[in-house]
């Protein structure tokens, strides 16, 4: 192969793929029974880190950045005047194998612009995965993008070779999608998700009966939404996310702060800052929904459509619901313990364990590792030093903010100045 040409393509097609935040290479254990190449321990390894501190785990590239569509938020869109390139199938296979053998990567994350049509594109993505698995005996991680509108048959095949499949929903609202990606249909996104979900369920069921059933997308499916491109509210975003989690058994939803790459009257101005703090608050909310037993309506609703930027969503919820507090650490159930600001899930389990032996006081709680400077406004324990009683929400908030040194403070100050 001509290295010079490959290098040129790689720089174009890696650059075009980098805005996809998902780097997860975890999940989907695969071992290496036939002494082929690679294994996947299910843990995911970051082999390097970019200067923005993101994990580099996979070779994340587009097969091509030629595209027949013109989605406003996308750097690859048809009307954008950029260099175009396309990898041959074998070139992607060779790159993946050679990077993998040198311990640069955990595997491949392959996406693509849409050339000709959805099926024509999807077919080629599947072909890459198939070659890697069957010809190269490769057991590393493979994440394929499902091309919106691809046929059920191709989606079925894709899952036989890939560990994870994802369709990026990109725009959280239907109206936003209509505005920014006029030639894409909402149904086209839904269809492959639906198919993948059905296949996963069917394969799991069959596996229970027939051991030799091939595995299908063992690391499940995920999707990504762009944040801050269409003026959508945090409520819109999280309600959509909840919909995808529930409806399609998504493993993960990723939130990606919009990075202005194009001048377009429908989009935020080119010098708009990347909403990193907002992105972080959305991930925290996502976390609360998945692991802390919150429902989305509790955190975001008609009277509360945006997440607070200055405090995290759990604290914000607690301040709006002070009537539930204080709770008694030695008696409260798991559900309520998990709702106390400053107490993480790890600490919840430790508290439940430890209080079987003795009544817990402040010293115990500190040893367990709760963030007492937040938690003590909301709890009582086995101690005469009662919690700081009867403060108004604003006052608690002010005190906590004064004592906390958020790593995002600098963003926050910065963003405040914009208002």
């Amino acid at each position: 192969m001509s290295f010079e040409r490959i290098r040129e393509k790689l720089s174009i097609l890696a650059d075009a793929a980098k805005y996809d935040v998902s780097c997860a290479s975890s999940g989907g254990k695969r071992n290496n029974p036939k002494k082929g190449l690679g294994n996947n321990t299910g843990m995911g390894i970051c082999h390097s880190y970019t200067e923005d501190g993101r994990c580099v785990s996979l070779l994340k590239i587009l097969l091509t950045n030629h595209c027949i569509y013109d989605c406003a938020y996308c750097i690859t869109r048809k009307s954008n005047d950029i260099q175009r390139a396309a990898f041959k199938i074998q070139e992607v296979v060779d790159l993946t194998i050679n990077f993998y053998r040198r311990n640069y990567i955990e595997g491949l994350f392959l996406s693509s612009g849409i050339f000709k049509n959805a099926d024509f594109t999807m077919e080629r993505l599947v072909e890459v995965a198939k070659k890697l698995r069957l010809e190269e005996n490769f057991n590393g991680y493979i994440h394929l993008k499902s091309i919106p509108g691809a046929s059920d048959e191709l989606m079925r095949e894709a899952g036989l070779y890939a560990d994870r499949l994802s369709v990026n929903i990109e725009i959280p609202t239907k109206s936003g999608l209509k505005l920014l990606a006029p030639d894409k249909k909402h149904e086209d996104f839904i269809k492959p998700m639906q198919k993948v979900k059905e296949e996963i369920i069917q394969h799991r069921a069959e596996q229970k009966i027939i051991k030799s059933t091939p595995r299908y997308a063992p690391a499940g499916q995920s999707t990504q939404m762009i944040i801050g491109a269409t003026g959508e509210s945090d409520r819109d975003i999280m309600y959509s996310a909840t919909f995808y989690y529930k409806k399609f058994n998504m493993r993960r939803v990723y939130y990606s702060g919009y990075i202005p790459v194009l001048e377009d009257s429908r989009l935020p101005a080119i010098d708009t800052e990347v909403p990193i703090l907002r992105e972080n608050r959305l991930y925290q909310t996502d976390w609360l929904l998945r692991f802390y037993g919150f429902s989305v309506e509790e955190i975001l609703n008609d009277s509360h459509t945006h997440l607070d930027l200055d405090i995290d969503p759990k604290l914000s919820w607690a301040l709006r619901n002070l009537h539930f507090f204080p709770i008694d650490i030695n008696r409260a159930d798991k559900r309520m313990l998990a709702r106390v600001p400053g107490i993480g899930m790890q600490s919840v389990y430790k508290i439940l364990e430890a209080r079987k032996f003795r009544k817990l006081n402040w010293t115990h709680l500190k040893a367990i590792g709760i963030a007492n400077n937040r938690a003590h406004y909301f709890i009582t324990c086995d101690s005469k030093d009662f919690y700081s009683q009867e403060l108004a929400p604003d006052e608690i908030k002010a005190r906590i903010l004064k004592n906390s040194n958020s790593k995002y403070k600098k963003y926050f100050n910065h963003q405040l100045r914009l208002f």
Partner: protein
Amino acid sequence: MHSQTIILYDGSFDGFLCAVFLIYEQKVTHPIINKKNKSTPTQLFATTEEIHTEKQKAKRVWDGFKLKTTKTQQRMFFKAFLSEIKGVENTLFNYLRIVFMKEKTDTSIDYSNKDILKISQVAKMVQREKHRIEAFVRFRLTTDNIYTSIIEPDFNVLPLITSHFKDRYADQKWMIYDLKRSYGIYYDLKKIEIITIEGTVKSNIDIKSLSSNEKEFEALWRTYFSNVNIISRKNNKLHLRHLPKRYWKYLIEKN
């Protein structure tokens, strides 16, 4: 003043266990276990005893330890040993003593004991280094078709990373060489061997011994790395926390 006995062993894990064996066998009262090296000064008020490593004796000690510990505790113990931190042998010995005093089959563990706590902390550090080395090893293909990597880990992690690389790279020959400790592991498509290289080993493999396309693949990797960076999200502090500078030397993408 108590008279102390300094017990010198060869630096191997088996050797260390043999030192323990001797302490129990001869009821040594104030032992200090030290690694033997060329210039151990003679101590005025201590007797020095040098032991020979015997697999059988080591096994007896380890079997006894295994009876009263869980797998996790055993691994933790071994990892702490691999830290090679000065004096760790004596903390490990204290730990052993606590274990041997327990009832049979009692595998509970008291984290409020300072030696046990110390061992678990050190084991954690070693574990982290293991993960990092698994991630940061960079193989370079040489003319004799061996994927070769040189490392200089803070702790002696080669014994811990062997199985990971053996599982993963089962169909290629590879070698990982620890320059600091002057030994390596080599996989010849069938089995793992421990190797040493005569003469001085340089941290940089001679270009002449690299396979013809190696430089090209490295250039491709650098191209990839520089193109996935998003400048508007630059965060150097985070970058350095994940990728401390001391690892850069062997990272192709950082050179």
